[in-house]
Structures are given as C-alpha cells and as structure tokens.
C-alpha cells in the first residue's frame, strides 16, 4: 500500500507541513499531561497501532480525523515556530502566515529578504508611527480626564508610545474631538481606539465595523477603517486579549462574533492546506487530514474515501459526500455532470422523438397524421413504419406496411444512429437503479429491524444471533454503492479485454448482491429460519469478498495504468 504513497514526489511543501503537523500533535498531547509521560507515551502508541489497521487494502487511504481544537494546535505550533524564527510576536506571526496563505516556506524566504516590506504589505506596523511627535511622549496620564495634546500640530491625530507587546494606551485626542465616522463626541480616553497607524475612531464604530466584517463578510484579515489605510486589526484586538488592556478605550465584541472569527481562522487554515479538508456534512466541524491525497496527481490513481469521527463518509479528493469508489474523482465528476445535463433529456428524446430516416434530424411528433415531412430535408416518411411515404399509396392514415423491407431498413438505420443514446441509457438506468436502492436503505433497515424482532420471538435465536440480518443489509448497501459507480466507470471504459474482466467482476458482484437481497426478502418461518440464517451469513461473506475483489482490482488497475478511457479526459487540468 505504502508504495504508492511514497511515489508522490511532487508533493512540494505540503509534505513537510504534514509531517510537522503530525508530530506536533503527538508532542502536544505529551506536553499537555506532563505527569506520567512514559505511561502516556505507551498508551499513545497503543492507540496509534489500534487505529491503523494491520493490513490496509489497496483501495483504502491513510487519514486522520481532527477536531477544531487539533487544528487550533497545529496553527499555534506553526505560528510559534515562526515567532522564534522571524523574531516577531505571536499575533504578528499569525497575521504574516495568513497573509502568505499559510505558506511557511514562502514567508520565510520573503521575510529573510526584506522583513519590513513583508510587514508593510501584510499591514503590520510594529514600527513607530511615521510622524514623530516632539518626544517619545510619556504615556498620557491614565487619569480619565481628557488630555489635550495642544503641543501637537496633529491635533486630530493621536499620540501614543508604540510598544508592540504592551497594550496600546488609549489615543490622546483633543477636547471636543468627534469621531469622524459617527460624529459622536466620546469622553476621551473612554471610547476611542486607534491602531498603530493612529487613525482614531470611537469604539462603537469599531465594534460595528468589526462585527459587520466578521459576521456579514466573513473576513479574517480586517484593515483599519481609514480610507486607503493598510493596517491590519490584530487578532488580539478582535478577541479582546490585548495584554493589560484598559477597560475603557478597547473594543469588546460579543462572544458569538469572536467564535465566528475563530471559526474563520480555522476555515482559512484548512483551505490553505491541501492535506486537510472539512467534512462536507452540514453542521459537522471535523476536519480530515490525508497526506496521501493532497496532490492532484495522487487523485489520478486513488479514490480517498474517508470517514469523519461523526461517521460522515466523503471523498477527500473532491468533497463529494458518500463513497464513489472505484471510480476516480475526475471521471466521477464527469459522469455526475453528464447525468445532470443529459439523463432527463436523453430519456425524453428516447421516448418522444424519432429521427428523420434521411438526415437524422430529431423530430417530435406533436399532432397531425402519420405522414411526416422533415422540415430540414423535406423527406416524406411514415411515422409508424419509418418507410418512405411514397410507398403508402392511398392508405393515407393507417399504416399496415410494417414488414415492408424499406421500413425495416429505415428502422435499422434509426436504431444504429441511436446506439450511443441507448448505450448511455443502459449505463444510466443501472446506475440510477442502484442509487434508488441505496436511497431506500432506510426502509430496508426498518424492515430488517422488524424481521429481527420476529425471529427472536418465533425462534430460539437470541439478539446476538439475529445480528446477521443487519450485517447483511450493511453489506448490500455498501455493495450497491460500489456497483452504482462501476456503471459510471463502465460507461467511460474503452472496450478491451481489461474491460471484459472488469465487467465479469461487476457481474459476479451484482449477481451475489441480488441473491443476498432476495434472501433478505424471504418470509421468516420457524422451521427454516436456521437454514436461512446460514444461507444469508454465507452469502454475506461471499458478497463481501466479491466487493473486495471489485475494489481491489479497479484500484490496482489505476495504479498499473490498466484502464483506458473512451473519451478524451483531460481531468488534471482545471
């Protein structure tokens, strides 16, 4: 199995990330509980070995499901690492990483080249304000009384010492200062705040602005309110974690907004990391980490079906819910799109139209007699037998000439030209049939539940002993999913010996599944229940095997490049 993971040499920096992240997590857990480290380590190893199945099948991938707190830890780890490497504080580190879309290598490169340029572009101004004040002003008296900075020519601007780690003291504003946005006149220093850029606004405006940006626009990098000002509002301001912040003069956002902001940070981090993907199920906040499927090229040969801790299964490659094995993402997508666009149309065309025997234009007969005149080529023919109208003589409105040679030829030609439509519908109908069955799975479970109850009441079987029925249903549903996608795959497979082998496997699986389904429908009779149980159990094992064969063979085929497609698929260029 691991042989095709190590094949991925084009993983670029993602792989490093993953390794770091993976090991980080382990370290985190170690450091969290400092006592009993050895025992802890031991149990960790145990759980790891228990998690990774002893034999991984060729159609399975290694992955890990992470909770939001795990992602937080990964982010913190990366940010802390950058802190020490670049000599910046933690909040700056976070902001720089976000600015570079969490591309650590790129950030380090650029930062080593010109730290100030990077900081400026990112909107992080931890350098003193550009306009210098008469002196590195002694911090204004903390007294609530307004301090008129009459000495400053920049009366509108604010003064404060710029210390990147300490809390920014409230800006000093003139008496009679009014907020340039809402025109209120707050009592300084209460209710006035400025970023490093010294653009002062009242805290009410800041609050409204930040809340709007976070809640309405979903922004995680928010700039100063001044027109054209590039300064970022730091995370500590938004989350209200400015060290030693004075109660007055600082922004207080409600908890819901703060949570939303934290969520935005996590979402952005996951978005930036190709080895991570959110569970697509609504309301689920687990993230799956799957390094083996983090590159586009890996998806040419792997179908990374994963399952989050809440039990939602989805494809890591394309985010499609459910399991589209054995078909790879790009072709599965192609098929879904085709079905969305074509299947209804194709069905309608098939049932409601015929083709002109001469020019093959599609014609819908929406009234009138059987004497058809093709609008396009003016060919006259009979709608019933498709033969030329000239041979109908005087039998104008009834066609009794079905067996005439001309008519037979015309119909033959017609079916030939419709072969591709028929072919598509062949695969589509089977695909849709399994889809339909899967949709009815809830019913099937309910029915089986009842039967299991019945068995317990009418026979000697215990609760444990009747579980075989549920297991059989599980397997049927799983196999129908596989079968469904084999029909999509079959549609695109080029005719070859390989395809014949593929179809043999498909047929065996389908036959086995149908047989098992049939057994499950049988009525329960006390005399035969024991043998039925045996039959179903055996069949379940057989079906499970057939499914494995199907998945294994297709997966190997992808790895060996055995599958040839009948359509030009340029799936890896988007």
């Amino acid at each position, binding site marked *: 199995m691991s042989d095709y993971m190590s094949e991925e040499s084009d993983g670029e920096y993602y792989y490093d990330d993953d390794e770091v992240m993976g090991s980080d997590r382990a370290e985190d857990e170690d450091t969290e509980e400092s006592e009993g480290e050895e025992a802890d380590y031991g149990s960790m190893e145990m759980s790891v070995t228990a998690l990774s199945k002893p034999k991984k099948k060729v159609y399975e991938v290694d992955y890990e499901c992470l909770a939001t707190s795990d992602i937080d830890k990964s982010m913190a780890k990366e940010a802390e690492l950058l802190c020490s490497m670049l000599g910046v504080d933690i909040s700056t580190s976070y902001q720089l990483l976000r600015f570079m879309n969490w591309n650590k290598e790129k950030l380090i490169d650029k930062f080593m080249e010109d730290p100030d340029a990077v900081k400026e572009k990112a909107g992080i101004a931890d350098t003193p304000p550009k306009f210098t004040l008469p002196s590195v002003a002694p911090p204004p008296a903390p007294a609530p009384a307004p301090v008129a900075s009459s000495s400053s020519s920049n009366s509108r601007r604010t003064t404060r010492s710029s210390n990147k780690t300490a809390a920014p003291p409230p800006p000093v504003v003139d008496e009679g200062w009014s907020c340039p*946005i*809402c025109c209120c006149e707050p009592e300084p220093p209460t209710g006035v705040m400025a970023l490093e850029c010294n653009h002062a606004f009242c805290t009410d*405006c800041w609050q409204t602005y930040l809340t709007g940006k976070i809640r309405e626009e979903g922004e995680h990098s928010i700039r100063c309110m001044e027109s054209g000002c590039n300064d970022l509002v730091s995370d500590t301001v938004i989350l209200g974690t400015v060290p030693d912040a004075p109660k007055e003069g600082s922004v207080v956002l409600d908890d819901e907004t703060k949570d939303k902001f934290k969520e935005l940070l996590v979402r952005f981090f996951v978005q930036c990391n190709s080895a991570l993907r959110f569970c697509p199920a609504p309301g689920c906040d687990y993230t799956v980490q799957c390094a083996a499927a983090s590159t586009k090229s890996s998806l040419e040969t792997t179908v990374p079906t994963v399952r989050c801790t809440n039990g939602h299964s989805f494809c890591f490659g394309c985010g499609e819910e459910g399991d589209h094995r054995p078909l790879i993402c790009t072709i599965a997508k192609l098929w879904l799109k085709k079905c969305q666009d074509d299947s209804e149309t194709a069905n309608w065309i098939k049932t409601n139209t015929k083709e002109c025997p001469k020019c093959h234009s599609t014609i819908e007969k929406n009234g009138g007699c059987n004497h058809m005149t093709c609008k396009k080529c003016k060919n006259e023919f009979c709608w019933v037998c498709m033969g030329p109208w000239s041979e109908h003589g005087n039998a104008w409105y009834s066609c009794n000439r079905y067996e005439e040679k001309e008519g037979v030829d015309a119909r033959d030609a017609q079916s030939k030209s419709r072969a591709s439509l028929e072919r598509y519908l062949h695969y589509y109908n089977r695909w849709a049939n399994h889809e339909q069955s899967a949709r009815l799975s809830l019913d099937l479970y309910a029915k089986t539940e009842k039967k299991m109850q019945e068995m317990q009441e009418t026979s000697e079987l215990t609760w444990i002993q009747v579980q075989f029925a549920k297991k059989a249903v599980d397997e049927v549903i799983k196999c129908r999913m596989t079968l469904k996608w084999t029909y999509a795959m079959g549609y695109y497979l080029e005719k070859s010996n390989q395809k014949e082998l593929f179809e043999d496997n498909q047929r065996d699986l389908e036959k086995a599944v149908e047989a098992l389904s049939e057994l499950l429908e049988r009525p329960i009779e006390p005399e035969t229940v024991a043998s039925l149980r045996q039959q179903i159990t055996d069949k379940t094992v057989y079906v499970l095997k057939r499914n494995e064969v199907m998945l294994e063979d297709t997966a190997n085929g992808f790895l060996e490049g055995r599958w040839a497609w009948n359509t030009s698929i340029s799936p890896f260029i988007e």
Partner: protein
Amino acid sequence: MAMMSTKRLQKELAELNGVKGTPPTGISLLSADNLASWRLELQVLGESLYQGETFAVEFRFGSRYPIESPAVVFVVNDKYKAPVHPHVYSNGLICASILGNEWSPVLSVSAVCLTLQSMLASCKEKKLPDGNDAFVKTAPLDPKKVRFVYDDDTV
C-alpha cells in the same frame, strides 16, 4: 445603529447645505428630504471632455451607513443623462472601487462626489463600458447587488 447614521448624515447635510462650512465647488444639493436618499448636481470643473455638462447623482443610505457604503448612481431621466464614460453604464450604474471593496467609513458624500468629479475629469475618451448593452438589459436596479470587478485604475 440608526443613531450612528442619523448624526453623521445630519452633519454631512449641514456641510453640503452651506449651513456649516462650504460645500465643495461643482457640487450642489438638489434634494434631501429625508436621511435615506439624496440627490446632488455635479459638474466637472476645469478643462475636460465633460465641460458644460451637468449630471445628477443619487445617494441611497442604508441603516449601516457609513460602515457600509451608500448606493450611488447617476440619475437618468428627462432632464439628466449619465455621463458617457468607460466606468459608467448608460443606466447610471457606476463601477468604482471606493463604492465597493475600497469603501471606508471615513469617506463621505462629498468625498464620493469629488472622486466622481476626478474620475470624469481624467477621462481621455468618451466611450461606454464594454458590454454596456448586455449589462443594462439584465442589471439589477440596486448597484449594491452588482459584483463589479475593479480592474482599471487609469481613469
């Protein structure tokens, strides 16, 4: 919230009326009967392609003004036409970044008008935007519902 926009708009109105301070040249208030929608007359000063022409702009303010940008369009009726300009559609909709992603709560009605004046003044060729006809046919009446792409910063 409402308080925020009220106080701010009253102050802006006083400036534009000339009650407090002087309104910018080339800009005069046509109507401002309430604090939801104003109309202003706008002329381009100095030498330009639009010399002698007079336009009207309509501002509509939401309750979140000035945190959110106002909706600004050129008035098109019997009396006024929209200027022929590569960033102004013939239905009056304006493609300007400061009305979209570069809006700042510090900007005001007069600041927007000044920007529009300079946008017109720097225009080198009177021409409609690409795809004007197609856009005008389908465009929503509310400019805030249009996703503009700001790709040309020359005019």
